[in-house]
């Protein structure tokens, strides 16, 4: 007879614990399924390579491949529903039929979460792009999940409101995608995270039920706050179809400066000084190391500073102010700049001040263009991590040294190791630019980077999420009890494992 106890006696010292990747047993989309989809959707909302009227493969490419062209799905079918009801009908059908689904927004995610692992059905929210309501007294905006961030910004501008979120991908990413990735971005320092600004959500659950929590209340303490679960869950618990969010009064005056620093050690003292002097009008404090600045300029992102201003600079800081009174703000900023320039031991070499909105935009273009510049330079390995502020440069340098010692800092392998990020939020973007994505480089970087981050008690994903890229590394930032409960929650919402399979959870 088989002795259970003898089995349990085998040593279980497998550290660090690796979670076996469990991809659920799922079915592919068939012609039979398409017959059903055709009943509920117009022809223009269905793109499929299945017979009888197959579209060319190329039409599916933008949906199957991610923004970095690093992750490649093999989906045969994309559906673009226009209403919550349509989403619900599709999801219910797929749940009954055990068909995997990938919810897709603007497909700008950076961890491979928005493309299929295999041939899951893609549900694109692109056709759900209407503003449902806006209240210009409270500033509460209710919109379809497929609204593009930029168009919501444009919508709010004439009402003198701004969206509490802004990021480099604003021209393509959707509010549903932002909520699902809990995107941080460039305004977090000022307006806080989406966990605070999102007031309500409408979500289609994996069995097709519509969870309507689209309230517009700032205060609502009535038990479990379920919507929080969907913020940052990367589409693994349901499909967000509507978002209610608190927008902020538009600042009446904005200014920015780019400061050139002789050494990284000055960033933190500078941050303290800038916070002290600018206080409530400080709205961004972004760190850019010299190498990535040079890449941005090389790839034409924004107008470069003059040579005089960049000479001897080890890094740059972009400071933005937003306030209600131009004269007051400018006075504050000017006295800050004066004190910085005239200090006995200056923290900065020099800097430039934008004197027109065109220059204001141009300075931001340098910062916002970093992601794009890095992608133009080569194949980026992107690690978006939280580490203590004083360790920013150390992490970049140690990683570069590690790659050098592995003999990978060379042509044909890694070209650059660069860092930039939201100092105000403790968030560093460590980017390793290689000539190609190769197992060799990947093996040198992982788990090296994750272990480094764990050593500083940091987070392996400050903003971009886990997606498929980091499932195996989740344990560096979440302990076994946490992962266990995350799995239980997933099981509860999605017992068949149809929604975004293979993502987030190991």
């Amino acid at each position: 007879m088989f002795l259970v106890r003898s089995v349990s006696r085998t040593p279980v010292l497998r550290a660090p614990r690796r979670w076996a990747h469990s991809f659920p047993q799922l079915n592919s989309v068939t012609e039979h399924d398409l017959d059903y989809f055709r009943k509920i959707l117009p022809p223009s909302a269905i793109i499929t390579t299945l017979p009888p009227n197959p579209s060319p493969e190329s039409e599916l490419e933008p949906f199957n491949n991610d923004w970095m062209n690093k992750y490649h799905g093999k989906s045969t079918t994309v559906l673009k529903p226009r209403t919550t009801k349509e989403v619900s009908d599709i999801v219910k059908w797929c749940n009954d039929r055990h068909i995997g689904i990938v919810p897709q927004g603007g497909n700008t995610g950076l961890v491979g979460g928005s493309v299929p692992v295999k041939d899951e059905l893609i549900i694109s929210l692109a056709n759900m792009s209407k503003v449902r309501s806006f209240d210009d007294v409270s500033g509460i905006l209710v919109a379809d999940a497929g609204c593009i961030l930029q168009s919501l910004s444009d919508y709010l501008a004439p009402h003198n409101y701004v969206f509490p979120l802004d990021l480099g991908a604003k021209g393509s990413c959707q509010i549903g995608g932002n909520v699902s990735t809990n995107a941080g971005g460039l305004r977090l320092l000022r307006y806080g995270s989406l966990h605070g600004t999102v007031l309500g959500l409408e979500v289609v659950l994996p069995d097709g039920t519509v969870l309507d929590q689209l309230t517009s209340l700032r205060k609502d303490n009535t038990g479990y706050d379920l919507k929080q679960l969907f913020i940052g869950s990367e589409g693994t618990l349901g499909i967000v179809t509507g978002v209610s969010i608190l927008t902020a009064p538009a600042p009446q005056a904005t200014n920015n400066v780019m400061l050139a620093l002789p050494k990284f050690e000055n960033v933190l003292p500078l941050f303290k000084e800038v916070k002290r002097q600018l206080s409530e009008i400080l709205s961004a404090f972004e760190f850019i190391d010299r190498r990535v600045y040079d890449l941005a300029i090389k790839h034409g992102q924004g107008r470069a500073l003059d040579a005089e201003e960049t000479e001897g600079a080890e890094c740059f800081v972009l400071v933005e102010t937003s306030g209600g009174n131009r004269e007051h703000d400018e006075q504050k900023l000017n006295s800050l700049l004066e004190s910085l320039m005239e200090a006995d031991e200056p923290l900065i070499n020099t800097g430039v001040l934008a004197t027109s909105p065109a220059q204001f935009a141009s300075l931001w273009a340098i910062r916002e263009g970093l992601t794009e510049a890095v992608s133009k330079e080569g194949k980026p390995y992107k690690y978006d991590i939280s580490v203590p502020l004083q360790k920013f440069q150390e992490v970049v340098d140690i990683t570069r040294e590690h790659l050098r010692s592995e003999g990978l800092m060379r042509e044909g392998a890694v070209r650059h190791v660069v860092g930039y990020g939201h100092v105000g939020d403790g968030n560093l973007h460590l980017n390793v630019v290689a000539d190609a994505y190769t197992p060799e480089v990947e093996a040198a970087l992982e788990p090296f980077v994750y272990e480094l981050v764990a050593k500083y008690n940091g987070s392996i994903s400050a903003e971009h999420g886990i997606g498929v890229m980091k499932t195996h590394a989740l344990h560096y930032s979440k302990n076994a009890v946490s992962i266990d409960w995350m799995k239980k929650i997933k099981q509860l919402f999605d017992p068949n494992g149809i929604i975004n399979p293979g993502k987030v959870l190991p």
Partner: protein
Amino acid sequence: MRPSAVRLLNILVPVKRTVDYAVKIRVNPDQKGIDLNVKHSMNPFDEIAVEEAVRLRERLKDEVKSIKVVTIGPPKSAETLRTALAMGADAGIHVEVPESAPAPEPLGVAKALRAIIEREKEKGGIDLVIMGKQAIDDDAGQTGQILAGLMDWAQATFASKIVVDVAKKEANVTREVDGGLEEVRCRLPLVVTTDLRLNEPRYASLPNIMKAKKKPIEKLTPSDLNVDLTPRLETLKVTEPPKRVGGGKVESVDELIAKLKEAGITPVKA
């Protein structure tokens, strides 16, 4: 015969404070003007003019003796002068008009500039005026030409490249014309107006902003210059451009054809 001693170049750059080009213009309810309570900055063409003057100095070094900027406008125009000084101009002149006064017209401005140039004669004179080809608020595009006429000077408008030979007292200016580029040679003194492609203006650097605070700005009134800036034109009505009607999506080619027919578009008979 020995060549005459080389005269050094004195440059004058007129600048104007305008509603920033990125601001969405709103017409006032009385339809006589626009909402001016918005972000202002230096007229972009003037910014290019200042940049060009500073670049001329970078190229010609000591041959450029002075770069003066002048503005004719309300008290807040002083900010625009400071910006120009921070970009590298040496000194400013502010011909101040009251906040409530109507905006001066090109002829008035050109006469004020002529008076400024006359005043500068005793300080070495002006050899080169570089100015925007137009201001983006009134789009008049006349001041440079009128000034050259009043002074009886050469003019090179819509410049995309300027090469000055100080010793020979001439300048070669490349102009953007309809068919392409035209290069003209002019004798100094000269009025040049700038086109967009002449250069890309620099950011104001912090050390230069600090220095600019200490640079002199001379304040004058129109009566100091003996000029009358009263407008000769009356604005009857200001209206917004017609609203763009958004496009629509169609589901099929048939629907597209039907929509085109609806809109009165018919196929061309072969």
